[in-house]
């Protein structure tokens, strides 16, 4: 079992958790608009005719952060890290498996204590409050606008749903909104397909603004756009934030964009927060090795032309069976024996060595750190035992082995048991989930 989330009762009076409570900067802060507390979203894997649940994809697995009023928080990470799922949970499109999303009004208490209730099932006042104040802009502006609706109907729909306006008044409100995003009255009666990608994204933004929300979840809003159009949209978002005091949750994979837009950044890896902190500090001096890998892989237009881009070895592990300890340890260049080396790593690291596991007949696990690997002959068993000390595995992995013994055809391996590596406070409002000190 992974060290678990949801030890806190959902909807507790104070949303602070152990993790966040350590950080005086972010608890009981009146400036906080949105609190995400221990949010997990697991998707069941179903198999067979009976559709039995055989596992859980842990898309988001215990994430907490605060979003301050009028600021932009950047949520970054690579595909499959859970950033989009988390954005959908915040926008109320997915029910969190555990944990909660709390939207606070200016007095600091949460009128829409979401707990783990889907936004579809939110009732009455709380639902209306949440919907009015948390909107979303999607990446694909083709797909996010109904092709059969006119711009007036698309942008005016929130007003209609919340019975704010109708008829001529609605039209005038829509014109106002269109003008705010750089479009105009002449665009009212057109269909989405008559616009370019940038213009369609402006229409999406106008729709999100219609209810005058406190915050907007921006899910890769410019990733499908050309750079010159991206600049227009980023400028627009920036201007709207200044004018209306909007709060953004900005989800993106583009580090240059997020650095430009966000004052705080949360870096996600495999469903968890790897590192979080103020943008400048995080970019100037990344703590987590994953953040460092991301930064040195991202080409920067102002950077030197001959700087090398290194990238990362290996693949992202299976989110249905995330690694123990620190989830990044399987690809980390500075991994230590305390990072959570486990039996799975033995197999993953050595499966590319020809013939290593050809004679393997079974694995008897006592825990994820402790197992017997049974072979068909004792040569193979000895070969594996030797390999565990060899150059094919990282030194830190070898060092993490407490005992390894060969009994006839079985290799018994026990790794040091390590708890899950959690976020720790690093000063300057920074948090990182790494066993290494700064």
């Amino acid at each position, binding site marked *: 079992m992974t060290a678990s989330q949801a030890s806190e009762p959902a909807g507790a009076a104070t949303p602070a958790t152990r993790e966040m409570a350590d950080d005086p900067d972010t608890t009981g802060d009146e400036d906080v608009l949105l609190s995400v507390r221990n949010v997990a979203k697991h998707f069941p894997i179903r198999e067979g005719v009976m*559709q039995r649940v055989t596992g859980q994809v842990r898309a988001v697995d215990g994430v907490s952060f605060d979003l301050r009023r009028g600021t932009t928080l950047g949520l970054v990470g690579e595909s499959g890290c859970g950033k989009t799922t988390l954005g*959908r949970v915040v*926008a*109320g*499109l997915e029910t969190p498996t555990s944990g909660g999303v709390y939207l606070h009004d200016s007095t600091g208490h949460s009128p829409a204590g979401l707990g783990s209730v889907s*936004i*579809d099932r939110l009732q009455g006042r709380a*639902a*209306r409050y949440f*919907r*009015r104040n*948390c*909107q*979303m802009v*999607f*990446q*694909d502006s083709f*797909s*996010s*606008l*109904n*092709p*059969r*609706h*006119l711009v*007036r*109907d698309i942008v005016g*729909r*929130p007003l209609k*749903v*919340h019975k704010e306006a109708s008829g001529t008044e609605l039209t005038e409100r829509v014109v106002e909104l269109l003008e705010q995003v750089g*479009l105009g009255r*002449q*665009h*009212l*009666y*057109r*269909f989405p*397909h*008559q*616009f*370019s*990608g940038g*213009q369609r994204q402006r229409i*999406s933004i106008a*729709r999100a603004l219609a*209810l005058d929300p406190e915050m907007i979840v921006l899910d890769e809003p410019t990733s499908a756009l*050309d750079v010159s159009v991206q600049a227009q949209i980023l400028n627009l978002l920036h201007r709207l934030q200044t004018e209306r005091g909007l709060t953004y949750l900005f989800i993106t994979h583009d580090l240059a964009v997020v650095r430009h837009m966000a004052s705080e950044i949360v870096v996600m890896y495999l469903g968890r927060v790897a590192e979080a902190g103020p943008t400048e500090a995080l970019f100037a001096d990344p703590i987590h090795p994953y953040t460092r890998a991301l930064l040195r892989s991202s080409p920067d237009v102002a950077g030197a032309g001959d700087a090398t881009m290194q990238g990362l070895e290996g693949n992202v592990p299976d989110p249905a069976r995330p690694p123990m300890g620190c989830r990044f340890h399987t690809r980390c260049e500075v991994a230590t024996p305390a990072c959570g080396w486990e039996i799975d790593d033995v197999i993953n690291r050595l499966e590319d060595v020809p013939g290593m596991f050809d004679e393997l007949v079974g694995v008897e696990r006592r825990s994820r750190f402790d197992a017997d690997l049974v072979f068909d002959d004792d040569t193979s068993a000895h070969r594996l035992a030797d390999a565990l000390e060899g150059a094919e595995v990282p030194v830190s992995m070898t060092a993490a082995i407490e005992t390894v013994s060969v009994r006839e055809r079985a290799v018994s391996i026990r790794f040091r048991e390590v708890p899950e590596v959690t976020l720790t406070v690093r000063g300057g409002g920074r948090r990182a989930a790494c066993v290494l000190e700064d």
Partner: protein
Amino acid sequence: MTSFVPVEEPIPRPPDDLEALLPTSAARVRARRGAELARSILSNPTTVAGLVLVLALMAMALLAPVITEPNSPDPAQMPRDWGAIAVPPGSPDHILGTTNTGGDVFYGVVWGSRTSLRLSILVVSITVTVGVIVGSVAGFVGGRVDEVLMRIVDVFLSIPELIFALAIAAVLGPAFRNIILALAVVFWVKYARIMRGQVITVKQNDYVDAARVIGDSPVRIFAKDVLPNAITPVVVQATMDMGNIVLIGATLSFIGLAEAGLAEWGVLVAEGQAGISSGRWWASTFPGLMVFLWALGFNLVGDGMRDVLDPRTEKAR
């Protein structure tokens, strides 16, 4: 004027002065788009041919009492002229000749279109309604409900259409009403399947999520976002089935599952079949030709609609 310039695929922009003259109310924009659609449907000559055929056949069905005097007491039964048996076409009383039993082929052809229209409209409206409801519920609600409904659909699909309809009609006894019932029982599954697939595809569009974020209710999201974007293939299929159902209906009545002597094309073909070997071709040929024309007409129209209405080609225009 900077709008109207999709970067990927430049489309022609009407001159600015024309744009200024155009009406700017939603209804008129919609009407203009409808007219555009109609124009592009009608720009295909084969579609127009199909449409003409369909309209002519429908006119014939509606005007049947005007074209020929209705038989009394039951106009759906063929009149029998026992004094003119197996008269060849061209005789003044019987333009298309008569059958072995003195049935007037012309009367059968004309009133048969009425029977066919009734058959196709009834079957298509019942099956489309049931199919769309079942498919929508399965696709939109998903989960267990979907599982259960789709297993039921699978059971229906595992039996060949014609044989299934034949079995039902045979059990219920020879009557045209039972043919309608049998076809309705068999055909709804097709629409349920099409609709479910469509709903699941459309549901994945971000505009459905966008509507949820706004706070719109599931019922309205279904009505405004899902249904209009999902229904097109059903409409096309229904148009084609208007023709196909008559074909199958005629087949069933041909093998004797309708009342004897009914003014219906399949019955008439069956009646004339015995005479073909002795050179009396007319009693079977004319109603057979009608079935062919009916099926052809609706299939041509359906094809033309698909080319224009297909959401993929529609977006590109």
